[in-house]
């Protein structure tokens, strides 16, 4: 499985914004932010079948 690249040329902008969102947070605050972000993004995607694919992609190698 190779997930489609939807960010394209804006990838660097997104990555920088993501890291900046964590600026000044403690590690546990950051983990909490990440959890909120996953939930918010899941709601935006809103398609359970699609989400199942993404969950599987993220799970791959998790214990490797």
């Amino acid at each position, binding site marked *: *499985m190779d*997930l489609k690249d939807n*960010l394209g040329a804006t990838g*660097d902008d997104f990555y920088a914004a993501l*890291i900046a969102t964590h600026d000044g947070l403690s590690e546990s605050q950051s983990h909490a932010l990440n959890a909120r972000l996953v939930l918010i993004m899941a709601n935006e995607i809103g398609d359970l079948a699609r989400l199942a694919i993404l969950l599987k992609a993220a799970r791959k190698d998790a214990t490797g």
Partner: protein
Amino acid sequence: MAYDYTPFPYTAPAGLTAPEPRHPVVIVGAGPIGLAMAVDLALQGVRSVVLDDNNVVSVGSRAICWAKRTLEIFDRLGIGERMLEKGVTWKVGRNFFGKDEVYNFDLLPEPGHKYPAFINLQQYYVEQYLVERALDLPDLIDLRFLNKVTGHADHGDHVSLTVETPDGNYTLQADWYIACDGAASPTRKRMALPFEGQTFEEHFLIVDVEMETSPFGTDTPERWFWFAPPFHSGQSALLHKQPDNIYRIDLQLGPETDPKSEATEEKVLPRLRAIVGDAPFRIDWMSVYKFRCAKLESFVHNRVLFVGDSGHVVSPFGARGGNGGIQDVDNLGWKLAAVLKGDAPARLIETYDEERQHGSRENILNSSRATNFMTPKTAIEALFRNEVLHLARDHGFARRLINSGRLSQPCSLAETSLQTAGDAPLRPGSAAQDAPLTGPQGDTWLIGQAQGDFTLIGFGGTELPDIDGVRCVGIDSHDRAYTCFIDRDGHAKARYGSDHIYLLRPDGHICAAFTAPDRAAISAALQTAKGN
């Protein structure tokens, strides 16, 4: 073989014995930027004196990656072909995470360009070629080695400076003072100008090794980049090939390391062995750097102009230091020449600042992002970075997020004041794109025909108007009073379309595009581009 650092000759300058007449331009610093500046001005008939405190080329390779746009500018300056011939054109890049290859890519050259995406060539060769080019133009370039500028004062309509030589001190006057005196710019310090930005805490050990056997195990030059390399405790490493069997190795050391003890053979050799194996090699040069990204708020201070590292510095990931400086030269050269010749108002110089601040900001943004990706500051940043690398094995989108340097691209000047807005396949503000052409003298390239002067390009049945000071180039046109070329492989039409007329600035940037040969509209765009 090791590079031969033959010193350039010093001759006692005239100013030591009698005052010299005021010079139109004095360039302080004969690094790649100062030398390119002198050649650019000379090609437009502007004389300059170049002063350098030293008398050899850059010691150590320093800048090694020269991007396509830079090579196209060097083509105009007369050393592009020589650089291409000597340089290494790499194709295959491999990214590693730990000891595992995450992915590799083959940089297939885009057809129809004279120059590749970039070449590797040591800075000392570039400087040598530029010095030799400058010596071809002895009436226009007065190169003075072992001439150290120790002071300057701006008098409104000219600048005076004091110079120290092995034979004593003298003074000079110039209409314009161009500071190309590098990252530690004494000019900038004398003027107490703030130079602010981000300093990265990590030290980088940069080593050039010479070896006969390619560490890549193939004859193809590659670029290998490691995140969390297995062979040393730092966070990244880079292996890159240069000409003469010289390999560049960058090793990121932690912030706590002592740079002095790291740059010793006893510390470096085991790390090099871990990268290149048992093949015999020789250390050619090594140095430890801490990088920063910073720039001046303005590159124009009345009669004092900052060009290259004196005005802005970046971390080297993405190779934007030297490449950015050459674009400064390209931008300033024609403007200063036009102002000195009375062909444009002095305001045109202000647009050098406007346009290159924009380029410099873009370079700093990209270099900082690459450096941040390579040197995560917090546990969370490291976590994201590492998981991008894990995902990259399977997913193209994550590969695109891996950032070990985004190669310098020509920046767009669309929003700046010299361009006339318009819609065309190549938008005003973008740099011209190359294409193979055939003309009365045989095969040639578009960039060779369209740089150096204001140029109008028209296609097919279009008849370009004759406008003073504008060169006309016809593509697939016949029986014109101006030179016409055949679009040999169709690349020119594919890139420019055939329905537009383009007006190019002498630095090869498109400043306006038209759908009809309307003399009044073209003349107006020309005046706008000259700052009128």
